């Protein structure tokens, strides 16, 4: 099972929306994912165990897993592309 970090600045507002969207997507595609909703500042403590980071907050750090920008879940612009990127990672 893939461990997906979902992060925003506060770990409260936008990550909640993104978390819900990924949950739904995983269900539709019969994928089991371990979703962990965190603040972006907490990513460091999951570096060894995570497979993917989906975030609405900026991050300049380099991580050993892919990082996907999730702003489109909030605005609807480009959301299909973002979903495809996430799905591709989950199915790897």
């Amino acid at each position: 099972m893939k461990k997906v970090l979902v992060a925003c600045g506060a770990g409260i507002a936008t990550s909640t929306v993104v978390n819900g969207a990924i949950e739904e997507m995983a269900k539709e595609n019969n994928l089991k994912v371990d979703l962990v909703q965190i603040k972006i500042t907490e990513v460091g403590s999951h570096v060894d165990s995570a497979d993917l980071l989906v975030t609405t907050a900026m991050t300049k750090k380099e991580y050993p897993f892919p990082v996907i920008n999730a702003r489109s879940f909030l605005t609807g612009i480009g959301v299909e592309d973002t979903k495809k990127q996430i799905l591709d990672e989950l199915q790897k």
Partner: protein
Amino acid sequence: MSDIHFNESIILVDLEAKTKEEVLTAMGENLQKLGLVKESFTPAIIAREGEFATGLPTKGVSVAIPHTDVEHVITKTISFAVLKDPVEFGVMGDPEETTPVKVVFMLAMDQAHDQLSLLQRLMQVFQDEDTLNYLANEKEAVKIKNLLAEKLDFAFEGGE
């Protein structure tokens, strides 16, 4: 959902401000005056906006959704402001970019992870060009309140 504070008192129309800090201060101080947030709320939301921008370019007018940690909030609310003239906010997740924001939804949440359906409905408003344009041009707080209450599906207690 019934415990959210939502009436005309948290809706600011024609807010005049030159910077995002002025916008956040006006909205935050209004909430503090109403006893909905603590004194620490305004400085916290300004600091958070500086660190993690919340401007969102949409198909309609650009919006911003400033928010901060639950510890600064007394009663859950969403304050709404229409800016007289657009103010530049940083774009969420894109530190180099700014966007001219016309409407601001200030989220004062009292629990983390507990408002998915409310937030999802809010995001639907962001994706609805007509509603955003209406909100950006409406001058009467009561009309804005009624529309948002319908779109966000608030259950009212005690009328207003």
